[in-house]
């Protein structure tokens, strides 16, 4: 264990050193905290047992805490608490903290419960520290160091947890943006594409590909692109639409744009997007009518 500590003391990353600074965790503090490892290892099981056997109903189903006696939860919590003394808040334990954060999420352990248990454990260790100390002033310094380091450890765990959550949200967003847009066949040679949601670069590339594939497969000669369901149209979205429609034209099909709201129309004019490139046809009904006429030509 000592090797790990010495190596991390030598090369903390710049970001990490900054975090220690915020919590006023000095090198000396870290040495003091890692010196508590034997004490922590010896007592952690008893501390957890005390925490769980107190009154307070931690085993309520649907409560804040994990079901009583769930051994893997306690194992994880023991491991996480000991990490404070073992790894000394280094970058290496970052993955562990993400794991702890996700673990809490998966088992429905709320941040308050996590912090409550953590604080309880630190308080108990401080009690033990005071009992065993021969040098009172030194014990006080160590206690201060422990509290600072613990706060830092908790903060980093919660941050790692929130980063993992943000990742999950971003992944969900990507999945949403990849929702396929249906390309509907209205009649022979005539396709209808209702676009709904946010039209970003990624999605508009997908959309263009889908439309071009459908044109080739169904031998279509006209496409009605309806953007009633597109909430935001700015110059980039307009650009995507123009490119999609130009590509359609190159495939030998005419395209008609419908569903431009009064607000969108006004905004587009102000920005400077002209109508011609978009071949707009008002509402869907008129768009389909226009497209049919194009077919007859």
């Amino acid at each position, binding site marked *: 264990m000592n090797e790990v500590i010495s190596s991390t003391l030598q090369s903390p990353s710049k970001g990490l050193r900054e975090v220690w600074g915020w919590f006023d965790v000095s090198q000396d503090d870290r040495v003091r905290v890692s010196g508590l490892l034997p004490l922590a290892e010896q007592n952690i099981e008893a501390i957890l047992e005390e925490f769980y056997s107190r009154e307070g109903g931690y085993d309520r189903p649907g409560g804040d805490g994990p079901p009583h006696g769930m051994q893997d939860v306690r194992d994880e919590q023991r491991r996480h608490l000991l990490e404070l003394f073992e790894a000394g808040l280094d970058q290496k334990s970052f993955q562990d903290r993400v794991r702890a954060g996700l673990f809490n999420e998966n088992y429905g352990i709320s941040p308050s419960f996590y912090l409550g248990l953590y604080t309880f454990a630190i308080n108990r260790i401080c009690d033990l520290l005071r009992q065993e100390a021969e040098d009172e002033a030194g014990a006080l310094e160590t206690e201060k160091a422990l509290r600072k380091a613990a706060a830092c450890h908790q903060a980093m765990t919660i941050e790692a947890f929130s980063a993992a959550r943000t990742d999950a949200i*971003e992944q969900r*967003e990507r999945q949403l*943006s990849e929702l396929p847009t249906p390309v509907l066949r209205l009649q022979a040679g005539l396709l209808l594409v209702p676009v709904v949601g*946010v039209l*970003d*670069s*990624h999605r508009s590339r997908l959309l263009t590909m889908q439309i071009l594939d459908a044109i080739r497969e169904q031998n279509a000669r006209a496409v009605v692109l309806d953007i009633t369901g597109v909430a*935001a*149209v*700015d*110059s*980039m979205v*307009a*650009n995507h639409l*123009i490119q999609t429609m130009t590509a359609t034209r190159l495939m030998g099909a005419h395209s008609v744009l419908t569903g431009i709201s*009064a*607000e*969108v129309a*006004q*905004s587009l004019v*102000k*920005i*400077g*997007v002209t109508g011609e490139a978009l071949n707009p046809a008002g509402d869907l009904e008129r768009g389909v009518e226009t497209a049919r006429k194009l077919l007859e030509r």
Partner: protein
Amino acid sequence: MNAPAADPAVMLQRVSCDSDVVAARQLARRLADELEFSRPDQALIATAVSELARNIVNYAKEGEIEICTARAGAKTGIKVTARDRGPGLANVELALQDGYSTGNSLGLGLPGTRRIVDEFDICSDPGQGLVVTVIKWR
């Protein structure tokens, strides 16, 4: 710009991806609604914010959009500041011309935004980033 006093409530949106653009846009729209801008004006403000945020994503990768209420005398408006530490603009005049783009865009973002808003201030040091401040009065 005659430095109108801003309300203390400032909304900040970090911008680094497409969904942040949407979020900034929605923030602006909500404030515009609260300030009782007309519906078409709300759409214009949202579009302006969209263009500014889009520029950040496209050219600077990341930055921020700050939205607040602007007041000057009896006038109330919405003030939007787009800030980034990207490459900045080598030629501001050129960038404000319709159809000029170093990317593959319509080149309407900045000039379009300028047409939408009442006050438009752009400050760029090449290599230091770009700050665009706009105000639309009600």
